[in-house]
């Protein structure tokens, strides 16, 4: 079984600042993938970034980057130069050989002026 823990129910960041969302996970599989999904108030689930567990290099996608610590089973998301449109619920997600996604409980990010 796979589990995902997000210990921060809510976070707040000022516009143009940087924020890091935490995530830890547990899996018995050696081959797995990690994702961050974003769910704005419009409720559509949007893929933010993807990390293959076999890759040591941290994934980046424009202002979004991850800090993947495989030994510690940690997968944090850093958002740089935060924008009002980044306000959303962020889910840390894992998938393994079964392809189904296992979600964390989410972190609600507020972006203030």
């Amino acid at each position, binding site marked *: 079984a796979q589990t995902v823990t997000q210990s921060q129910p809510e976070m707040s960041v000022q516009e143009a600042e940087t924020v890091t969302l935490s995530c830890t996970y547990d899996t018995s599989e050696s081959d797995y993938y990690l994702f961050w999904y974003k769910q704005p108030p419009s409720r559509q689930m*949007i893929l933010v970034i993807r990390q293959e567990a076999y890759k040591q290099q941290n994934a980046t996608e424009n202002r979004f980057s991850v800090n993947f610590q495989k030994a510690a089973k940690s997968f944090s998301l850093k958002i740089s130069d935060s924008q009002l449109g980044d306000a959303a619920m962020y889910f840390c997600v894992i998938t393994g050989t079964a392809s189904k996604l296992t979600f964390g409980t989410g972190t609600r990010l507020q972006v203030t002026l």
Partner: protein
Amino acid sequence: EPEVTQTPSHQVTQMGQEVILRCVPISNHLYFYWYRQILGQKVEFLVSFYNNEISEKSEIFDDQFSVERPDGSNFTLKIRSTKLEDSAMYFCASSQGFNQPQHFGDGTRLSIL
């Protein structure tokens, strides 16, 4: 950009009635999924579907639930004899391949009265 579309956006049904939630996955995708999110709780996997059959299902997906791909475009979730606890947001997702990023629809909010 191609999208997963779900209809209806909101469905209100009397307890005990049958309901069908509809999804049109992205056209060249081969893997299809249903997830649900009860208000205030995490997103939960229900079922995955590939090559016209269920590839995996969760404990939630009991005999009350069924999925079907009746034609080349639609992917449906049927809930028979609905219960109050079936009230949730139901998300459809599709992916191009195994462990490829899953693209989500906007969801159907199901309310059981």
